[in-house]
């Protein structure tokens, strides 16, 4: 298992290295002068000269790349063209909001999706099954931003059940330790702050979690159906085990293998969905930062973001592989 982790981490370094070349080439491959491309319509001769000097566009390409790589290794992702703020510190500041949202969405998807998928499979063809299958189809086809807007208008603006935007009521004087507001409230025993942050989280998490939820319901259902017809489940029944023991130990556990794989793949989709959700609910996370960066072609931010996402994605999938090894002894590397 340890060998697996070390090997995967080594592979991760290689992937990031390759990605840095691609990202470097991406900016250089833009038609015309890279400095002009970076500045876009606002380009002035003075601005171009300044950018050229700052980024070293007049140096040889390999030297430029090495400089770029050297900065990356030291954690210097450059500064935003729009705000002049260092990319990394902005990330650090905004990342907790995105993580909190994504974890909430994924948690919702797992906690609701797995039991729902399981029950649908056990009552195949029943009302619950049809509802789950139909509902999950709806969950996949309805775009995240549409669902986000819909939830916001119906449940918060119209019915007033949930706050419309932001992460916490501005009137609450909350202490922020980790940047995860719900957790902060629990750590500092400011229960009202925690509760308020949780209420703010409900609608964005519902919107963002809809697609992973739908996918998890479907995968779990299909997987449970398959395991139910496996020979070893018949053996378990022949042993005269209690129904609950068979369900938990012999059906669900085996059925979770494909589900955990899907979870890893969902992590990527989740981050792109977070961009839309954060924009609709005015949450200051990575997503809305990126939204602005794309609009304004803020290349250092985009480059940094892509590297960062690749890192997160790879780490999440490593985590999934490790969990896979914990569930299924056959994939463990001795």
């Amino acid at each position: 298992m340890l060998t697996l982790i070390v090997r995967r981490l080594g592979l991760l370094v290689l992937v990031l290295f390759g990605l840095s070349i691609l990202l470097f080439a991406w900016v250089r491959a833009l038609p015309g002068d890279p400095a002009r491309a970076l500045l876009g319509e606002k380009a002035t001769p003075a601005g171009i000269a300044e950018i050229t000097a700052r980024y070293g566009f007049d140096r040889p390409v390999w030297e430029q790349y090495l400089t770029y790589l050297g900065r990356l290794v030291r954690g210097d992702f450059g500064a935003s063209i729009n705000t002049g703020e260092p990319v990394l510190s902005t990330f650090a500041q905004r990342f907790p909001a995105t993580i909190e949202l994504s974890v909430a969405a994924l948690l919702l998807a797992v906690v609701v999706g797995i039991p729902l998928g399981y029950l649908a499979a056990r009552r195949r063809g029943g009302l619950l099954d049809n509802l789950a299958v139909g509902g999950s189809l709806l969950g996949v086809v309805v775009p995240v931003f549409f669902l986000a807007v819909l939830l916001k208008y119906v449940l918060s603006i119209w019915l007033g059940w949930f706050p419309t935007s932001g992460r916490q009521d501005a009137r609450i004087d909350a202490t922020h330790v980790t940047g995860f507001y719900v957790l902060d409230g629990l750590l500092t025993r400011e229960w009202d702050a925690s509760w308020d942050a949780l209420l703010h989280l409900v609608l964005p998490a519902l919107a963002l979690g809809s697609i992973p939820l739908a996918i998890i319901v479907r995968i779990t259902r299909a997987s449970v159906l398959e395991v139910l017809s496996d020979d070893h489940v018949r053996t378990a029944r022949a042993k005269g085990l209690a129904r609950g023991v068979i369900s938990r130990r012999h059906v669900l556990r085996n059925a979770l293998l494909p589900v955990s794989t899907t979870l890893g793949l969902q992590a990527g989709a989740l981050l792109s969905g977070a961009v839309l959700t954060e924009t609709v609910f005015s949450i200051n996370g990575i997503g809305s930062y990126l939204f602005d960066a794309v609009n304004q072609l803020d290349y250092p931010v985009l480059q940094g973001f892509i590297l960062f996402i690749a890192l997160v994605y790879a780490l999440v999938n490593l985590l999934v592989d490790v969990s896979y090894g914990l569930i299924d002894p056959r994939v463990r590397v001795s």
Partner: protein
Amino acid sequence: MSQPLPETAAARRPLLEVEDLRVRFSRRGQPPTTAVDGVSFSVDAGEVVGLVGESGCGKSVTSLAVMGLLPERGTQVSGAVRFDGTDLLTLSPGRLAARRGKDLAMVFQDPMTSLNPVLTLGRQLTEVLKAHTDLDRAARRAEALDLLGRVGIPDPRRRLGEYPHQLSGGMRQRVLIAVALACSPRLIIADEPTTALDVTIQAQVLDLLTTLVRESGTAMVLITHDLGVVAGTCDRVNVLYAGRVVESASRHDLFARPRHRYTSGLLAAVPRVDAPEGSPLQPVPGSVRDRLEWDAGCAFLPRCGRGDDACRTGGILLAPTDADRARHAGRPGHPDHEARCVHPAGATT
């Protein structure tokens, strides 16, 4: 002398009595299929009884019906499966589960898929003990070790913590036999227990199974398509064809004097080492699909060389042949060799 000694009902009662068992599968949009069409047989305590037949004759479905392991949906089961006097078909799922694994256990055909790949062998052995005994954790573990030793698995202490994929097929089947024996059941149903194994270890595993069964006095229903397996292990044999028992006899009688034309065909089809070199195999012609409905006559008729119009009446009974009645004359009771055949083989002997 002419009357059998009076015996108590309990002593005379067979351990397992399957009576007129019928299993129909129905699927939406398809005509229902009858897999088992009135099977009756019985097993006495400690007896090893064979159910023999080719693929599709209903032998596996019969065993699953006895165990109550058929899928609930789209399955109709009728008849009676009396185990020690209780009709298992009338028990609630919970009460049946309480007896499965404890009073009657099963060994399945494919050891490669019949163990859960993500649980340790120890867990898969001890969970059946946990379900049916009061043993504590340590005692269950000790019992599991003992069981693995009894089925001939080397280094059982290490194996307890291992997973199925770390064992060969033969070893896995030994584990499954250990699971079946764990609670000292009174009946074991073994459904083609060696079919999926390498030819070289089939005999080992079969020997192990029969030895353990004989030692512990457990009765066994052995389901097989292999007459060689029957010859080596069974006390009694029931030959199944198209969902019904067509012949029932002691092992000796069946091999010495097969009565039903299907049985005699099967025996003639077994290749012999002492046959002249180059002599052709003699398969039973046709396939199971060429069959008559039992209500219209003998299902085997389309493949039978001896059949005539007399075989085209429904309700042919499983009964002793005239020849066997003659052999039995002067002894108490009925002959225990029965065949469902209008023109039985060896009618003149």
